[in-house]
């Protein structure tokens, strides 16, 4: 860090209005931390944030990814015209020590089905080697969570609901005694 150039080298939002997605991601990190799920990876830039949590206390899941993609942009004009909408992806991960050949056969069929599935109403399941992922997608209004008194509790409720849906979908892929943490 050179003297007097700290801020010249770091991206900082000038107005609070531009930071609604960061405010929401901060609350998500806090909510997960309260569940005992620490943050283990960040990927963040202007309009896209992804945080990975280690699901240390979950009997089925090994990790949860929350992705917030502010596709509408954060500028004043975009906000005025489109509001502060963002796409929230919740992805849960099951990992086993080994890739079960029977599961791989089943997941291959799922992969084929995914190619033609356009709807996000259900949990999308996919696999990569020994990891099985389930993902849900929602378009949300950031302002309804960030600027409201009960916003944080509704956010926690939403996360619990999404993680719960995905956990049930993935439960059968979890092999007993094969938790890799």
């Amino acid at each position, binding site marked *: *860090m*050179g*003297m*007097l*150039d*700290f*801020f010249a080298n*770091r*991206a*900082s*939002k*000038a*107005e*609070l209005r531009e*930071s609604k997605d*960061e*405010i929401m*991601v*901060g*609350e998500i*990190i*806090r909510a*997960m*931390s*309260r569940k*005992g799920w*620490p*943050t*283990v*990876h*960040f*990927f*963040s*830039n202007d309009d896209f*944030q992804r945080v990975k949590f*280690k699901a*240390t206390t979950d009997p089925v899941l090994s990790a949860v990814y929350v992705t917030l993609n502010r596709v509408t942009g954060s500028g004043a004009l975009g906000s005025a015209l489109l509001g502060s909408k963002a796409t929230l992806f919740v992805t849960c991960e099951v990992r086993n*020590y*080994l890739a079960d050949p029977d599961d791989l056969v089943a997941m291959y069929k799922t992969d084929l089905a995914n190619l033609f599935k356009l709807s996000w109403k259900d949990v999308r399941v996919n696999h990569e080697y020994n990891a099985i992922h389930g993902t849900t997608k929602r378009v949300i209004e950031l302002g309804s969570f960030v600027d409201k008194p009960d916003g944080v509790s509704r956010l926690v409720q939403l996360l619990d609901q999404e993680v719960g849906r995905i956990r049930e979908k993935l439960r059968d892929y979890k092999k007993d005694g094969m938790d*890799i*943490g």
Partner: protein
Amino acid sequence: MTSQISENTTWLVAVQNGQAGPYNLAQMREHWAKGQLTAESYIWRDGFDNWVQVSQTPDAEAFSGGGLAQQASVQPPAQQDAPSGQTAQPAAATDGSSGDAGQQPASFGLHQDDDYLDGVFVDLVKSSWQRHRRRQLSTEVDEVLVGGVITGVLDNGYSMIDLTSDGQNHYVRFEDIDTGNRVIFELQHLAESLLTSKVLGHEANVTIGYGQRVRDFQKTWKAVRQEMKGGYIQRADPGIITIDADMASQYIYVMVGLIWDIEDYLDAEDSYKVLYPKLGKDIGATLHSLRKYLEGRFGAAA
């Protein structure tokens, strides 16, 4: 296969990494009595064409105290036929006091028992996962701490307004929505690799900053720049409070660089657990000093 054995007969026993023995009958009886040799163990002696399970030979009776016949010299079949790593493992083979398993070529045992080989493979995968977890933890401790900082600062009434991370350098900015005061936390993990962290510990450069809007920002900022016009100091020493400004939002920040050991803030038994009391104490004390410095030098917030 012959069933004739005598007091001079010796056996080889297949063990985890090859074979052990030769053992005479008394030793085999001892292993049998201790349960180290079982009906499922693979053995070889003169007269056997190949390694066979004890249960498929008449020798089991002798191991448990039955009759004897004659013996011949020990000439086991080729080592690659040994079903390495069966359930029995005579004590003499494990403590190295007997047996020549260490001098034998490794058995690949590709035609051996399916369940047994599956078990060996699973053990290999599990031990690899243990090592992998250690490496993974080494790269994740900084994120665990930064997540803890975010949680702790939000618990004190702030909101996160900036987050930038490339996996090793993390920059977070917070704002108290009511007062407008801001906090900066930046962490650069210096020892992500397992090797480096074992030597140095998980050291990290940490910058903590506290910012406020001040009266007459332009004039204040001009005075601060005047102080640094020499340009000799590129980076302050640890613990030295510096001043900088965010021109876009017209905030003046006071900041301090520190060197932390990340593990000081994580549970020694479970490094995925943050020690919030210590983290809160250290960040709280630092912010207290920074706020005093800022307000003492530039007056209260505008």
